[in-house]
């Protein structure tokens, strides 16, 4: 599937790809011809020079010397343009693939999609797509190497069939060696390397959590000693990878040398043609050895493809148009007991940490479906309504902010389309954040960095709250909105939010362990942790 998506995307860049491939072939042929012609010219010149003035007169030196200079320029120009076009093809093809993959991820059942979207997975996804980009750039190396090999074969066949066959056999041996060696020498060390890296990270993380004891008992050296074996395993695996790559590339060099030597031995037809054949073979073999790098990278690309495949094949979410509600009452059933929150009602969900409050909210808005409580809106179960049926009803401000890298306005605009600036300021005012944003050097257009890095924890929460206020949904769902706020700001937030709820007649589902906002609620449900 991912292969098909990639093919579709590359097809749109067909013109650039075709140009790049042709140029790669021209460059390879020019490179082979440059050396071959130089060898022939040199030897021919030597022979002519040795056999006296008449032969010198007869030797046509103008054409070959002009040819040599012409080929040098042709090789440079074609190599330069080939790089430009192959990168253009790859960059624009992958530019099409990224939104396609995102749409697949966003269009599937949320519980599947969200398994992929934690920071680590997202970064992984990014680097996997980059690995594909590299593989598309590399695509032109195959026709280039083939063209170079063809030119080498034609040039060496001028010195007889045996020379050409020797070159052919040598090139085949080079391919065989890297195809066979790459998976054998690299697969295991690469896996070991990944495993050692993960172990080192895991141990590092568990030690880092104990910084107090390390500091007071001065245990730094002992911790280093404990990490040492993993660091050594990591080094050993990395060395094995490098050794493997060196063996593969070394084998290419040795085989290339043997190939040139056997071409030299088998070529006939005069010294000039022998020189031509040998140098052409050397140039063709050098071109050819680039393919070994592709073999080594192939393993990495294959891993990336396997992981991306799991995203490309995600099934689309089923949308049942018949299921819709207009945001009536919410019914909550906990261990047989039912609570009903009428439209515009205000519910506080309490309970100690770990009792599943955030899970309950996530299930209510359709982002997950693992809450044990029974949940229904307008008499229809939330699992039947699904994300499509639930999200028109709920404006959600999550506990772990969930800001995008962008400006303040970019973040607010996520709520819905066509939000005006005055609306934004009004929402920021209600969320007690207008003052802060006004003081930012660029106000609403201030760039905030990854997950709002420029703002404090409490400010991020209020920006997320402002975004939820702008969504204009019948229910507001807030998860710990006042975490990290001082009591005065929390009180101001309480008053403004209370007035906003009264004015808009929006319902509220609130999770907050801090008492400052509890007075917003008209109903309270307390969850109890599942006893172990």
């Amino acid at each position, binding site marked *: 599937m991912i292969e098909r998506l990639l093919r579709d995307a590359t097809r749109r860049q067909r013109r650039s790809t075709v140009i790049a491939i042709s140029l790669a072939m021209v460059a390879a042929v020019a490179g082979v011809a440059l050396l071959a012609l130089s060898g022939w010219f040199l*030897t021919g010149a030597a022979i002519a020079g040795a056999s006296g003035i008449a032969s010198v007169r007869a030797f046509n030196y103008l054409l070959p010397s002009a040819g040599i200079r012409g080929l040098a320029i042709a090789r*440079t120009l074609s190599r330069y343009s080939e790089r430009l076009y192959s990168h253009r093809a790859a960059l624009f093809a992958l530019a099409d693939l990224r939104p396609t993959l995102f749409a697949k991820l966003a269009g599937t059942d*949320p519980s599947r999609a969200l398994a992929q979207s934690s920071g680590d997975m997202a970064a992984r996804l990014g680097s996997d797509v980059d690995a594909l980009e590299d593989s598309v750039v590399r695509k032109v190396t195959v026709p280039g190497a083939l063209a170079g090999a063809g030119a080498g074969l034609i040039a060496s066949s001028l010195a007889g069939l045996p020379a050409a066959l020797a070159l052919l056999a040598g090139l085949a041996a080079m391919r065989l060696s890297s195809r066979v060696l790459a998976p054998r020498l690299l697969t295991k060390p690469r896996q070991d390397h990944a495993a050692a890296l993960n172990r080192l990270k895991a141990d590092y993380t568990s030690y880092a959590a*104990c910084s107090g004891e390390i500091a007071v008992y001065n245990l730094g050296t002992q911790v280093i000693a404990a990490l040492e074996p993993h660091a050594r395993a*990591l080094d050993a695996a990395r060395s094995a990878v490098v050794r493997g790559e060196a063996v593969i590339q070394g084998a290419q060099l040795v085989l290339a040398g043997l190939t040139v030597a056997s071409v030299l031995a088998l070529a006939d037809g005069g010294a000039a043609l022998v*020189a031509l054949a040998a140098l052409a073979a050397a140039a063709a073999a050098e071109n050819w050895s680039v393919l070994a790098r592709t073999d080594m990278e192939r393993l990495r690309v294959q891993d990336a493809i396997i992981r991306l495949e799991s995203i490309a094949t995600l099934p689309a979410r089923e949308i049942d148009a018949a299921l819709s509600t207009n945001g009536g009452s919410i019914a909550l059933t906990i261990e047989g007991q039912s609570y009903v929150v009428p439209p515009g009602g205000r519910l506080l969900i309490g309970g100690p940490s770990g009792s599943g409050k955030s899970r309950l909210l996530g299930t209510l808005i359709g982002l997950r479906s693992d809450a044990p409580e029974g949940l229904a809106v307008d008499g229809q179960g939330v699992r039947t309504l699904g994300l499509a049926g639930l999200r028109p009803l709920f404006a959600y401000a999550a506990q772990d902010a969930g*800001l995008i890298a962008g400006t303040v306005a970019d973040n607010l605009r996520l709520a819905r389309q066509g939000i005006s600036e005055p609306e934004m300021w009004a929402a920021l005012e209600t969320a007690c954040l207008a003052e802060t944003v006004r003081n930012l050097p660029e106000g609403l257009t201030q760039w905030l960095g990854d997950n709002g890095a420029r703002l404090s924890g409490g400010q991020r929460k209020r920006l997320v709250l402002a975004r939820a206020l702008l969504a204009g949904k019948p229910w507001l769902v807030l998860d710990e909105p006042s975490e990290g706020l001082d009591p005065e700001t929390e009180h101001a937030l309480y008053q403004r939010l209370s007035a906003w709820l009264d004015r808009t007649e929006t319902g509220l589902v609130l999770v907050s362990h801090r008492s400052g906002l509890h007075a917003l609620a008209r109903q309270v449900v307390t969850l109890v942790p599942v006893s172990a």
Partner: protein
Amino acid sequence: MTALLPSGQMGGRLIGEDLRVAIDDVEAHEGLIARFQPLRMAAMLSPLIIAAAVALASWFSALILLATLIPFGAGMALAGLAGKAEADRQFLALSRLSGLFVDRVAALPAILAFGAEDRVTRQIGGAARDVAARTMQILKIAFVSSAMMEFFAALSVALVAVYCGFSLLGLLPFPAPEDLSLGEAFFALALAPEFYLGMRRLAAAYHDKQQGQAAERSVAAALEQAHRTTPPATAPLPDRIGELSTQGLMIRYDDGNSIGPITASWRGPGLHVVTGPTGVGKSSLLHALIGLAPVSGGQIIHDGTPVAAEELLALTGWAGQRPLLLPGTLADNLQLGNKSLAPQELARLTEASGLSALIAARGEDLTIDPRGSGLSGGERRRIGLVRAIGSERPVLLLDEPTADLDPETAAKVIALLQDTARSRLVIAATHDPALIACATSRMVMA
């Protein structure tokens, strides 16, 4: 490979710092040290070595090769400047746009909740095409330098070939500087392509250089920060501690979250508790007392004198939420805080904390791994607690000492703490009503 060896040491010095700096950045260093730097050396030396070797056969060919370096150097410098200027011009836009895909995948819950996926998909597509177009702008110039290298590599081959050929023909338009044989001419021609090879490989390793240098900068910054917070020489250890207090202590984390001001006083000996809801900053307060939380204001006062938090390190026994477990035996781990702890004292503490059951069942030589596999949360906590009391230091800072324990064991631990607090200053952050009930003083954080 030496690039990877420091990872262990840095890991130790940077404990508490970012995992990415300590491990990933050290890994990224490899490209710079193992590939770029040797290649740079090779790129500087190899043209000279090749030229010297060519000179053995034909000094004039060597001269031709060296002469091509002059326009090559000038061209590379110009292309390099233009390339850097273009890269700098695009840097901000590129760094913002290229992370967009990863960022939006990470923010997927919010995007799904607001039904914004179509808009965001369009935005990702637009940004990705914008990145591609801008990258092409940079590449156009960046490739000029590699084209220049290719050109001079090809030109040097062509010039040597033409010179040698004309020399062999005796048709040079100037007096022949040397007498060439075919063998010498061939030798010069065969080596000519190698003249620029080192530099071409160096150019290909440019990416390693960039990544490695970025990593080097962040590791250096982290190390500098670690040095700044390195504790000074430890103060002499008094036998007992009278009073420990804080005056308007403020803690402010880099992400902007702040805790405090905290003003509190604890008199020793005694058992003091700090309570308050989760997330209010109890652990941060304990960490601030030993200099492991970023204090932005206020003072820590020891027997009436303001002290640096680091000075308390040597006076303090610590048992955190997750005790440190080092590979080794259980006995080793219990004595990490005090290697000279008397065996009978250790036996008394294990008995009093209820750990003796674990020792009876699995032996003192029970092997421990860093993740504490095979130990329950409560057992791990008590290992930290025995270690802290066994350190025989005058101040004990304990974070939730009775969490994860059944009521019976918790009662034992509380009795042990009360006993310990007769001679030492014990400060415990806790939610446990039974422990709070036994405390000399209670401070509520809100």
